[in-house]
């Protein structure tokens, strides 16, 4: 669960204010807004990469700024917009890196970790990709692998920055449906930033909208109408 309280975000000067919102587990939220409106900054703030300018963010009732760096990845996982292109890194090794916050000093994976990795690969239905190098994956497969990695991190909160950006129509549908399914069945709180408004609206989720006039992020609960979203955000 994520709660924000009197939150303002930005780097040196204030970019946006955020309404006091509560985002629950078992729910999927979409974050929409113009290019450069501060969506990524919002994500960086709630994942603890960038400090809050004022106010606070609570992740599972803990203030994000007071969670130690080493345990933060056990609370929130983040899937960035760019999939790393690294030579000789297999899908299995890549997903295994999600276990980093749980392993010992030498990063050795235990049997339990291997089982979690296998489980996550089978939940996303990509067990067949595990021996493949990440550089050999298609864009759709990359996104699936990135989601499997986020799952292997075993966090209540998963944040994805434009996971559908480079995908074709069918892959967009698959990715969004899988994420919704995960949020419900595995009790995750998932936030996705996207520009695919038409497609996302079919899932019937709530929206976080960067209000273009008020420089503010507000929560629009489901059911939402596309016209309302467009009027607020664009």
């Amino acid at each position, binding site marked *: 669960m994520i709660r924000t309280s009197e939150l303002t975000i930005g780097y040196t000067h204030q970019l946006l204010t955020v309404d006091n919102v509560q985002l629950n587990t078992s729910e999927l939220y979409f974050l929409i807004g113009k290019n450069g409106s501060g969506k990524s900054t919002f994500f960086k703030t709630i*994942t603890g*990469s960038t400090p809050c300018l004022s106010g606070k963010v609570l992740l599972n009732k803990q203030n994000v700024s007071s969670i130690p*760096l*080493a*345990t*933060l*990845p*056990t609370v929130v*996982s*983040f899937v*960035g917009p760019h999939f*790393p292109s*690294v*030579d*000789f*890194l*297999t899908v299995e*090794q*890549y997903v295994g*890196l*999600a276990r*980093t*916050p749980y*392993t010992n*000093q*030498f*990063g050795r994976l235990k049997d339990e970790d291997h089982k979690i990795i296998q489980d996550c690969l089978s939940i996303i239905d990509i067990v067949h990709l595990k*021996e493949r*190098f990440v550089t050999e994956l298609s864009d759709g497969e990359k996104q699936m692998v990135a989601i499997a990695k986020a799952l292997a*991190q075993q966090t209540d909160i998963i944040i994805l920055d434009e996971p559908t950006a480079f995908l074709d129509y069918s892959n967009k549908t698959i990715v969004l449906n899988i994420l919704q399914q995960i949020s419900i069945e595995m009790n995750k709180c998932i936030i996705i930033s996207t520009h695919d408004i038409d497609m996302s609206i079919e899932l019937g989720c709530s929206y976080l909208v960067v209000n273009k006039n008020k420089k503010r992020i507000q929560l629009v609960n489901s059911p939402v109408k596309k016209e309302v979203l467009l009027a607020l955000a664009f």
Partner: protein
Amino acid sequence: MTTLVRHRLILTGILLLTPAIAALHLFVGQIHLSIDDYWNGLFSFDKSSVNEIIARDFRTPRLLMALIAGACLSVVGLMMQTLFNNPLAGPYVLGINSGSSLFVALSIMTGVPFFASDFGLIINSLFGAFLFGLIILFFSRIVRTQISLLLIGLMLGSFISAFVAFLQSASDAQELKVFTLWALGSLQKVDFDQLAYIVPIALTGIASTFFIVKPLNALVLGEAEAKLLGINIKTTRLIIIILTAILTGLVTAFCGPIAFVGLAVPNLVRILFKTQQHLTLIIASVLIGSIFIVLCDILIQLLEPYFMLPINVLTSIIGAPMVILFILKRLK
């Protein structure tokens, strides 16, 4: 065959190959030595036996320096490639060796007796490597692309070369000779007694790298992702730069700047093992790096009757084309 089994097989293979090649190295010199000469030279040294002197004071240090230089430079190259997310990084191309060179040049040519001592030489070399490690780290925070960082490294190298050339023109013939011989690189400048501290420093440095296997594995994804996985980036960066300074500085102080080993060996290792698991990569870099330099030195000894080939010249002759091959392969 699973990946793990394949890795263990290759590792066992090179683990067996290393002592075999090392043994070969001991017996290729122009003067033939027997096993007894080595045994006696090391354990019941008789100063009147020429063969034992050669075994103890020339061949053994030369072999150990070859092993150490290869292992240290390769591990450093591996760490830098991972830290900077750049397969073409290495202590030589990023100007770390040059940093050592500059301070060694200063120490040789300033004429201050402390600087010219062994201890002064190491300290200067370490300091130069550390300073230029910090400089390249600073630039890596600013520039965004891999190529820019390499170009900056090369420019630092040129800048230092110019500065060193200036120092050379201002120094006397004796100093010039000492520095020039040092700069060509040699595995023969170490005597038996110096090994007493060179070996422990090198082994400690290499062993320390095993403690940063976990951060290195995560750093493969880039600093931002590694940080999101809970890795303390600042500490890791500092540890890598310190280890780089110690290992590069040590080797450079005694063997001169040895080019391309740190760049080429980790790339060879990655191609051979097809993995990003740094435990495997470190062990393999140590072994293959050692084998590489020992083989180079065997070749040098075989060619000795005809001409003297400095180690730095040979590693450049082999290493530079290899690097061009890597670049071509990546651009395809």
